[in-house]
């Protein structure tokens, strides 16, 4: 670009040529942000590679049998992660089964105008703050407060339903059931927050239309508002499932970390994450590799759930 000359000849305005240094700075800044952004992908890849590399020895020794055998025997170097995988799936799915009605119900309660707006905001704030409480503090609370408090209820459950294999053992402190309850506490804020946002985004016209044809409040909620928000809610539930599977500290502190398989929910159990937290520090040799293998399985589980969550949100979302 050359300078623009005025009509009379003498330059009144000139287009400044951008100095090379400025161009370099521009380019350099762009490349810097690009490099730092790609670090995210690199870290993710590095996590996968590190865990995969670490688990190769165990993969070679135990193969897919690792997934279905329940021996965890450091003395004879025999490892199988079935107990932990089963515990991970059962604890997170049962926790979700309790947390979803609670969370969605709470979200509906604080998006409807049943109580004053101030109070609704307060409930929303409290649920959000619950998410901020560190997991290890919830674990401490679970050990010393929650578990002793619910034990009579669990004993009652054992007396009434002890004939089924799921409640066959007497509750003796740490176990699967208290772990499930503390997981409920941990995923509740996620489900509530996402459902609340989803419900808030439903256009007001849909609700007005429903009221216009004469439905009741809950008729509108069940037939119009929930279906309109369902994709985001399901996405949130899946995210919560991923979180529940990977949740470590509170579960480790209250699940009992048993290495033996037990169908009973009142007996101590184990999850992949709590097994890692408990054994990784002291493990050596092929045990480290077996733990890495378990970590890889956990990663794949949470990855699948999270990707599915994103897919659900994109695929099922209604276009208004």
């Amino acid at each position: 670009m050359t300078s623009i000359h005025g009509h009379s000849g003498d330059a009144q305005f000139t287009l400044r040529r951008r100095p090379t240094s400025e161009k370099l700075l521009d380019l350099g800044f762009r490349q810097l942000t690009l490099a730092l952004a790609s670090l995210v992908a690199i870290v993710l890849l590095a996590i996968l590679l590190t865990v995969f590399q670490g688990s190769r020895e165990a993969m070679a020794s135990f193969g897919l049998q690792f997934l279905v055998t329940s021996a965890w025997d450091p003395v004879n170097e025999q490892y199988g992660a079935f107990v932990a995988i089963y515990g991970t799936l059962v604890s997170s799915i049962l926790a979700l089964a309790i947390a979803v009605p609670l969370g969605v119900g709470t979200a509906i309660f604080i998006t409807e105008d049943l109580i004053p707006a101030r109070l609704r905001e307060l409930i929303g704030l409290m649920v959000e703050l619950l998410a901020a409480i560190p997991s290890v503090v919830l674990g401490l609370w679970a050990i010393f407060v929650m578990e002793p408090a619910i034990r009579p209820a669990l004993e009652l459950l054992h007396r009434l339903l002890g004939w089924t294999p799921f409640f066959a053992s007497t509750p003796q402190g740490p176990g699967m059931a208290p772990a499930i309850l503390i997981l409920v506490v941990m995923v509740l804020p996620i489900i509530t927050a996402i459902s609340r946002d989803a419900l808030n985004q439903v256009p007001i016209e849909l609700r007005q239309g429903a009221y216009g044809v004469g439905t009741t409040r809950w008729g509108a909620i069940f037939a119009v508002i929930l279906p309109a928000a369902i994709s985001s809610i399901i996405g949130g539930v899946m995210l919560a499932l991923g979180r529940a599977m990977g949740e470590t500290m509170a579960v480790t502190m209250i699940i009992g970390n048993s290495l033996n398989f037990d169908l009973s929910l009142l007996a101590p159990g184990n999850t992949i994450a709590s097994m890692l937290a408990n054994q990784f520090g002291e493990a050596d040799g092929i045990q480290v590799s077996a733990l890495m293998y378990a970590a890889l399985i956990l990663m794949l589980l949470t990855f699948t759930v999270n990707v599915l969550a994103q897919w659900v949100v994109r695929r099922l979302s209604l276009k208004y």
Partner: protein
Amino acid sequence: MTHSKSISGSDTTTDTTLFDRRPLNFDPRLRRNRLNDLFSFISGLFATLAVLPLVLVLVYVLVQGGRLISLRLFTQLPPAPGLEGGGFGNAMLGTVLVTLIAALIAIPVGVAGGIYLSEYAGKSWFGQLVSFANDVLAGVPSIISGVFVYGLIVASRVFFGQSYSAMAGGIALSVLMLPTVIKTTNEGLKLVPNELRLGAYGVGASRYVTITQVVLPAALTPISTGVVLAIARAAGETAPLIFTALFSAFWPEGIFNPIATMSVLIFNFAIMPYEAQNELAWAASFVLVMMILAANLLARWLSRLSKI
């Protein structure tokens, strides 16, 4: 009511109407209205149940931990098993140090990544890849980040032959912070009206100047909200630290040695069979929860300041 009853009966003596004649006044005894009340009650019950754990946890942490708070907690070292007294001064210092390391790594990288996604990437495949990787990284369980850093740094002893170290713990935490910082930066920058960028270009600013002098300051509040929340979350994390930063009964000895942190102290002392240790765990929980709640309220206050 007696009057309405005669109308609501389906007497088809006159011309056939399309709808049942129902009274227009509200009748709470109708099945639909009773169901309506029932569901309102259930949702209220659920909301109460959802709030209950927070109240109970806070009450216990305040009562059990608050009554133990004294100055010695912050100045003394944890006692040996079986002994009384002591504090967690080293763990407080350790938490600050490890979180600081994590923040110093995650904030520059995360803010730059967010800038790239919002300002440069557009809809390019690479931008979408980074976005996707970020979402996946956000879903990676925190314990996995510990396993990763253990494999990468602790087991390979890259830092001067040291295995467990505050540095390793900080890096593990930064992996967890990164996705939050990137996401909030990206979303904060997207909220900045495009007119601001065009205005800056219009007066001759380069892209670099536009981003650093105009766009970034405009999005400062949402970004700092995200950063504060990420730091608060990292300060409470335990799982990535138990086999990277490990624990230490002594004052911090530099960032390349094992270090005590509040969260690991709570974990270790909660499962010990000694009264003194359990009490320290409660007191440490009190301090940690207060710090984290304060950070969260600060973040909420910051987000209220937002002008865009």
